[in-house]
């Protein structure tokens, strides 16, 4: 009898815990909602706060309920941290301001974690949906955002992707938008930069098992050839690789003067180090995935390196200066990155969409965002028919290991 008792007790305990978990998560959402309403009420009249707390989907038409998700844990946690801080900042500014609209971030003002992993993405999306938001913001990675976009389109929910650059994301439906440029665009800009700098022989090393890397590499090669640059070598690697000696030796052997490496920040120091060790002195360039690269200890290697980004923290435009200084005052510079800037802009874009359409429910926001022109940290841009913005690209370089803004290329190709 004793032997049976243990498993039976365990089953009962597990089932109870499971059911309790469902129950508590349902309760948590209610509690989270009201806390968010309380925290976002800085200086406003009680009536609108009460209305926001009890009414679903901003019944009073003046409160925009937003669900946010992003990579809070995992290898890119620094992006998630930046995003969390940025949206907290944005919410505070908007609710203190006089735009006529208030913003409420569901889930207690916290970003729901997707772990940078597609498997968790749908669950993150569902857990946000149960709070009844009018719009969802996120995420930074395309592989995470694609499944969510598919589902959001089915649910006719507005999804504003912040950093997912794969071009298929916005093609999932008319309610899907993004506020960053797309992979083909970055690749094109990189090729243009190379042409302007006068490099003629390009080599590419890309990560075969990553959407982002593939997208940029395809676009770069296409545009490089159109620009008269000779692509002498295309090398493959994977996102988990640490040894690049074979690929970099071939780059040198083929006599390239420009190396394009569109991958993420964690392998960049290794590749650049390997390239320099192999004797490559030419320029090395990457995409926005280079943002946040740790150059400590290897500053010399990063001379003559560049990358495209959504914005540069040194840009002198007033919107950028404002954002950078406020963020640095509150949170320092460790997590100040493009991801933070994109999430910040996203919140403001939703407010702008509400202003355009006059209401804060999903349908109105979608109407307001279609074809919208917006000015923010990422510059001034207009949403095209797919829901993609036509944005300028900032080109950054490194000086003594620190990121420095070099120039900004706009879609027409002029320098600013």
């Amino acid at each position, binding site marked *: 009898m004793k032997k049976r008792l243990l498993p039976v007790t365990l089953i009962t305990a597990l089932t109870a815990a499971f059911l309790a978990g469902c129950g508590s998560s349902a309760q948590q959402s209610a509690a989270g909602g009201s806390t968010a309403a309380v925290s976002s009420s800085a200086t406003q009249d009680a009536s609108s706060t009460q209305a926001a707390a009890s009414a679903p989907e901003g019944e009073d038409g003046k409160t925009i309920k937003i669900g946010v998700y992003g990579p809070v844990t995992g290898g890119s946690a620094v992006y998630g941290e930046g995003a969390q801080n940025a949206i907290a900042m944005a919410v505070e500014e908007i609710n203190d301001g006089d735009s006529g609209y208030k913003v409420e971030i569901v889930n207690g003002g916290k970003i729901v974690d997707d772990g940078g992993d*597609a498997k968790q993405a749908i669950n993150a999306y569902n857990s946000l949906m149960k709070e009844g938001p009018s719009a969802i913001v996120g995420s930074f990675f395309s592989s995470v955002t694609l499944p969510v976009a598919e589902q959001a389109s089915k649910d006719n929910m507005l999804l504003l992707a912040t950093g997912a650059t794969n071009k298929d994301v916005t093609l999932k439906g008319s309610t899907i938008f993004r506020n960053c440029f797309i992979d083909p665009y970055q690749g094109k800009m990189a090729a243009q930069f190379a042409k302007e700098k006068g490099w003629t022989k390009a080599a590419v090393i890309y990560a075969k098992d990553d959407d982002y890397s593939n997208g940029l590499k395809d676009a770069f090669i296409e545009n490089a050839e159109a620009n008269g640059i000779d692509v002498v070598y295309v090398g493959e690697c*994977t996102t988990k690789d640490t040894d690049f000696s074979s690929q970099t030796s071939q780059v040198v052997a083929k006599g390239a003067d420009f190396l394009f490496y569109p991958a993420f920040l964690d392998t960049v120091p290794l590749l650049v180090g390997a390239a320099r060790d192999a004797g490559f002195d030419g320029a090395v360039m990457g995409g926005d995935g280079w943002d946040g690269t740790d150059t400590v200890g290897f500053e010399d290697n990063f001379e003559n390196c560049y990358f495209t980004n959504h914005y540069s923290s040194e840009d002198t435009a007033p919107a950028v200066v404002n954002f950078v200084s406020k963020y640095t005052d509150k949170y320092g510079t460790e997590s100040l990155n493009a991801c933070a800037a994109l999430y910040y802009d996203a919140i403001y874009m939703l407010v702008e969409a509400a202003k355009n359409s006059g209401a804060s429910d999903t349908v109105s926001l979608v109407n307001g965002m279609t074809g919208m022109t917006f000015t923010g940290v990422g510059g001034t841009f207009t949403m095209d028919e797919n829901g993609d913005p036509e944005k300028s690209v900032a080109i950054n370089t490194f000086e003594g290991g620190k990121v420095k803004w070099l120039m900004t290329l706009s879609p027409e190709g002029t320098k600013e």
Partner: protein
Amino acid sequence: MEKRFKVSYFLNFLGVLAVFFLFVLLFENNAFGRSTQYIKGISTTACYTIIMVASLNLVVGCMGEFSLGHAGFVSVGAYASAIVSNGLTGKGLPDIALFLVALLAGGIAAGLTGVLVGIPALRLRGDYLAIVTIAFAEIIRVLFCNLSITGGGKTMSGIIKLSNFYWSFWIMVVCITVMYMYVRSRFGRTVKAIREDYIAASASGINVTYYKVLTFTVAAFFAGIGGGVYAHYMTAMIPTNFNFMYSAELLSEVIIGGIGSITGSIIGAAFLSSLPEMMRQFSQYRMLAYSVVLVLVMIFKPGGIFGAWEFSLIRVCERLTGRKGGWEKNRKKTEGGV
């Protein structure tokens, strides 16, 4: 089939039906309010995880060997079923038929892979088999990274979302039933004999290789079906999703649930796949907790929490109706339900 089996199957079917209607009741009446889609999503996740974990338990529990490459079979099933459903869509098939055809295709593809992997791999045992299964799973992953039909390393998206909870539930029930029947059949008993003492078994004239490869293939088949359900739920996937970590997670769930116990796999998988959602604040510590629990289980209860114990509805009914000798006069009660 003997009468006692018929009665027990019928009773179990009623039990499953009851559970299903409970779910239907809860979901259709919006018992969870706005959380309904959320809970449905978690439950669907639990369904396909259960299929995957139970199939791995066939190898680990019934056959007593290690497979650390199960994610490879899952991925074969996932990609095969996605390719088939993408290819057959719009040809006028009703959704349910499309889903079933796709799943079968995934299962068969995975089963074939199981044969191909099993024949060379199962000559080895113990540690070496474990490493070889990792190697095969990685080869499968690299293969998918390089083929353009699976997206060539990029995310394959746009898979039709056919996995709703009700269908997934019944597919899971069917899979579990077949697996259970396999374990109880003479195939299962033969494989258990091999597990206990393979030299004695082969000396008794059993074709050890045949039965091992057969079990491995059946396990791969069901892993493929689980993968198909996964693919049509996520609608997008990338080969790196099916890496060694995923295999290790599946194996941990088998062990924590109970080696050789299908009940353990069901409850373990259901619980452990909903755990990340319940513990969102602690998601960082999730794998840490898994590994600690795993070590503790190995030290204190090496057979897993449920061991080889199986839940039996008949036993519960017998208990309730107070019949000490059981309903069938000649029925022998043995532990583990063999």
